[in-house]
């Protein structure tokens, strides 16, 4: 409220009623502010009448007409200053002067478009990138999960101490013991994920489905919007009676048109009858957004799961209020140790780990996201430093103008405000451009994002983000405009007025520091980006072990109820692949129990004939795949020894035969001839010994950045899942065969949909999408930072050349070679850059450790990177320094000496 500084009579204002009075005055002023011209007229009239009254009195007192008028004028005092102070009271002075400042600033910016555009682009880059990353981070890391007190929710995993495969699913037997004995959890529930085919009348489609325990939704604190949840009793009876079903809001709307009668409706899922009893809320999702069906898990506490089944379910728990993760983890470690002692045959070397629910939803995306948030803050800092730098340069150039304004009576505060207005205006313009950039960038980000990140995210650009943008723009403007404004408003008046361009202001040291800082941050970003790019290149150069080009993949989930016999399912798959192989353009077709490179798949223990059974905790773990004959030929996985499966192997009547990979041989039978050896795989209830008939090359099917694991291949008839992934090798353009494939499946069973149609190349690409995502983004950030730093270097040197024009002129006149001048100027720049780069390398060495989990094949201190990053920066910096240097070298000494 600038105007109130000029209040008269403030000394006598009583304290209490003040606020109301002031408020009233404020509104009166706001009101009066409108009719400006009328007000001016009235004011003039009032003053005129005042003078007339006075003159008349004077005349009566005997003055001459001229004297009377002069006396009245003198007595009145400064007419203009009285008017001015009344205008101040009328108008919201600050508003008017602010508007004046804004117009003035806009005019000034228009006069120096290069400065304005550079500053706006700097800010747009910095703000745009920050907003985009913030938007994504916000929806993943900050926005609360749609559950009651979601911070108390954790996922509990089992973990094997010997096999080190990370978080493992849980045994229901252990789950029941945890639930009864933990003491730190208010509730515990279980679930398992799968995909199912929903049949409703004539239509059939595949959906994601979770099996959940009855306490699952109450634990989350979620109620259905229509109908009800199932009870514990219904959960227990799930296997014996008609199954109850909850559906998502989305499914309710899209499939059932939002009809109220949906409750009680009968549908078939995987061929079995289900009754819909409830609809979940619109924004509800759990871990993945593509789950639309929930049905009871049907765990039986009386069943001895540890004897009869393996680990297969997930466990969710709510910590009691006041319990920390650390406490929950300590309790679970102790409890798992007790269960290890109590059930050594099952639990030897197994422990339990607690993970916050949100972390478990983010997976690998979390470190990547945190790195990006850090990087984007750095980029923003560089952008701001650049703008501050530009402002400083501009202020030095305008010292005379400021001095003139000051000598004409503008207070320091007024000058500072004027300069701040300019920087805030710039920042807002940059902010607007940044928001536009961010809106576009968010779309690209989401499209590029790894599946981990995209499946649980619902990234939108909302009002909050916009407010954040405005806030951050203004903060940037004020923060980075303030220093230059203060520095230049302090500039000594006389020196500036004397036009002494050689007097050095405090600004230049600050500017050098800013540029060195920009350089340092750029080196850090550059090092990070180079590390990520290198590991991306390495990753894409890794041989996956199969040939992914021109392979169409899709999934068929056969309903267990209708394809209840193994041979029925085998027959379906065989018929489908045979028909596909007859299609023109298809080379061969096969199926796999799961899609390589993506899904979690089965792993179990393997025993060798003639060896003693391994001790608990020392079992031989192998991954399991179940495939059709022709699998290795279709995927071009090399046969190293023996043969691949043939049609005669694929029958329930033939004895078990296995194919293993080289990793299996290396790990478990390094000094043996594997062919003909017999193994037993503890996969099902009955597991006869079977002969190893072939050894194949390793496939990195767990994940492309992991060493291949020991793997045992079954032929389909000996291990038949209801869900199969088809792999069709085509001559070209695999997706063009998708319709034909769908047609074939429908031809065999009209109710059978196919899902997840993709090429194997895409699947593989997605496998490294996390790395690509971070690498591309960090690369973009570092290039932006680099360009900004280059602009900063250029600016500082160009300014210093302008300042030293006369000195350079003297040197040239005294016979300095142009090369000498160039190296003089470039040398000034080099000092800045070297200093900044040294700090940057130090910073990078300290920070790149954070990237560790995102790197593949190289360490976070890769020497190649730490040589290249400063080199790139140096060459860019020298190029930026060379331009002003060359200009200096070409100075005509006569002109230079005459300058200023």
């Amino acid at each position, binding site marked *: 409220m600038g105007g109130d500084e000029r209040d008269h*009579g403030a000394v006598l204002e009583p304290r209490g009623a003040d606020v109301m009075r002031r408020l009233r005055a404020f509104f009166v002023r706001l009101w009066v502010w409108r009719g400006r011209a009328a007000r001016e007229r009235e004011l003039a009239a009032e003053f005129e*009448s005042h003078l007339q009254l006075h003159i008349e009195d004077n005349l009566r007192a005997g003055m001459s007409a001229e004297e009377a008028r002069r006396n009245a004028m003198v007595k009145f*005092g400064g007419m203009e200053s009285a008017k001015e102070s009344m205008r101040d009271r009328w108008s919201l002075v600050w508003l008017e002067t602010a508007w004046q400042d804004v117009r003035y600033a806009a005019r000034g910016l228009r006069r120096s478009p290069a400065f304005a555009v550079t500053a706006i682009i700097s800010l747009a880059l910095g703000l745009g990138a920050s907003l985009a990353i913030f938007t994504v981070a916000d929806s993943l890391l900050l926005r609360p999960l749609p559950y009651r007190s979601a911070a108390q929710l954790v996922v509990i995993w089992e973990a094997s101490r010997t096999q080190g495969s990370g978080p493992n699913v849980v045994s229901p037997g252990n789950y029941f013991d945890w639930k009864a004995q933990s003491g730190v959890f208010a509730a515990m529930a279980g679930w398992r994920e799968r995909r199912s085919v929903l049949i409703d009348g004539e239509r059939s489609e595949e959906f994601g489905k979770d099996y959940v325990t009855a306490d699952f939704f109450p634990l989350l604190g979620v109620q259905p919007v229509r109908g009800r949840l199932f009870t514990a009793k219904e959960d227990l009876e799930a296997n014996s009676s008609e199954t109850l079903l909850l559906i998502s809001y989305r499914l309710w709307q899209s499939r059932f048109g939002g009809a109220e009668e949906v409750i009680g409706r009968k549908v078939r899922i995987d061929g079995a009858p289900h009754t819909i009893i409830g609809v979940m809320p619109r924004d509800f999702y759990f871990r993945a957004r593509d789950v639309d069906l929930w049905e009871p898990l049907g765990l039986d506490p009386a069943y001895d799961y540890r004897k009869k089944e393996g680990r297969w379910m997930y466990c969710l728990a709510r910590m009691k209020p006041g319990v920390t993760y650390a406490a929950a983890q300590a309790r679970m470690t102790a409890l798992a140790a007790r269960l290890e002692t109590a059930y050594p045959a099952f639990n030897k070397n197994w422990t339990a780990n607690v993970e916050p629910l949100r972390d478990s939803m983010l997976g690998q995306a979390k470190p990547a996201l945190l790195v990006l948030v850090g990087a984007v803050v750095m980029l923003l800092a560089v952008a701001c430093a650049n703008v501050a730098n530009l402002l400083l340069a501009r202020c030095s150039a305008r010292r005379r103008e400021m001095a003139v304004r000051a000598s004409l009576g503008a207070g320091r505060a007024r000058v500072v405000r004027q300069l701040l207005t300019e920087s805030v205006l710039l920042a807002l313009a940059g902010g607007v451009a940044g928001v536009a950039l961010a809106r576009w960038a968010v779309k690209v980000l989401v499209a590029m994002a790894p599946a981990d990140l995209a499946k649980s995210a619902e990234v939108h650009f909302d009002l909050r983000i916009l407010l954040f943008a405005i806030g951050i723009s203004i903060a940037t403007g004020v923060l980075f405009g303030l220093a230059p404004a203060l520095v230049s408003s302090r500039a000594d008046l006389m020196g500036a007025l004397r036009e002494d361009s050689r007097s050095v202001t405090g600004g230049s040291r600050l500017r050098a520091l800013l540029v060195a800082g920009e350089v340092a941050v750029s080196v850090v970003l550059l090092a990070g980006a180079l590390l990520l790019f290198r590991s991306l290149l390495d990753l894409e150069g890794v041989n996956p072990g199969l040939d992914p080009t021109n392979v169409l993949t899709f999934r068929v989930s056969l309903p267990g109820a209708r394809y209840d016999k193994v041979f029925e399912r085998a027959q379906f798959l065989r018929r489908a692949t045979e028909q596909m192989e007859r299609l023109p353009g298809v080379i061969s077709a096969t199926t796999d129990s799961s899609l390589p490179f993506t899904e979690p798949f089965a792993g179990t223990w393997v025993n060798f004939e003639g060896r003693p059974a391994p001790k608990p905790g020392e079992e031989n773990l192998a991954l399991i795949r179940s495939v059709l004959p022709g699998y290795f030929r279709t995927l071009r996985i090399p046969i190293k020894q023996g043969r691949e499966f043939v049609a005669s192997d694929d029958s329930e009547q033939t004895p078990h035969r296995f194919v293993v990979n080289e990793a299996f041989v290396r790990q478990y039978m390094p000094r043996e001839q594997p062919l003909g050896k017999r193994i037993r795989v503890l996969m099902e209830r009955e597991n006869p010994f079977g002969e190893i008939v072939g050894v194949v090359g390793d496939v990195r099917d767990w994940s492309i950045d992991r060493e291949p694991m020991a793997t045992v291949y079954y032929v389909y008839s000996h291990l038949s899942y209801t869900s199969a992934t088809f792999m069709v090798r085509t001559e070209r353009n695999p997706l063009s065969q998708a319709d034909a494939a769908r047609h074939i499946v429908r031809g065999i069973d009209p109710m059978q949909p196919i899902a997840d149609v993709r090429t194997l190349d895409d699947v593989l690409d997605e496998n490294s999408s996390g790395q690509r995502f971070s690498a591309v983004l960090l690369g973009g950030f570092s290039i932006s930072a680099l360009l900004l730093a280059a602009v900063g270097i250029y600016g500082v040197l160009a300014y210093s050349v302008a300042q030293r024009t006369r000195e350079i002129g003297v040197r040239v006149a005294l016979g300095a070679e142009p090369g000498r001048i160039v190296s003089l100027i470039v040398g000034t720049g080099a000092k800045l850059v070297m200093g900044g780069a040294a700090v940057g390398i130090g910073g990078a060495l300290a920070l790149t450790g954070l990237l560790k989990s995102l790197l593949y094949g190289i360490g976070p201190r890769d020497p190649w990177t730490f040589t290249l990053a400063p080199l790139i920066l140096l060459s860019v910096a020298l190029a930026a320094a060379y331009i002003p240097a060359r200009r200096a070298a070409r100075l005509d000494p006569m002109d230079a000496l005459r300058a200023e």
Partner: protein
Amino acid sequence: MGDKTDIWQGTLALMILKTLEAMGPLHGYGIARRIEQTSGDRLAINYGTVYPALLKLEQEGYIASEWGVSDNNRKAKYYRLTRAGRNQVKKEAQQWEETSAIMARFLNPGEQTS
């Protein structure tokens, strides 16, 4: 400003209010003149300075203004006290007396009785 006492801005408002209380509706020139006279010409004010103070008082609702005609038929803007203004005069006058009494004790410590 010569050897006359400069007017203290803060007191001007009270002087205006008091003048209006004593004189009834009055134009700006009249108020300025009256203040000068009341001070026994010991105060030198630029007549122009009363106008911003009048505007402030008006905006705060202590006085109101309207155009009228002076004794010798000249159009002038007349100011008068509002009810709030009358209360304000009392309050401020009382405060002012208190303040000056306190100041007086400091300036003449000998007269202190209690």
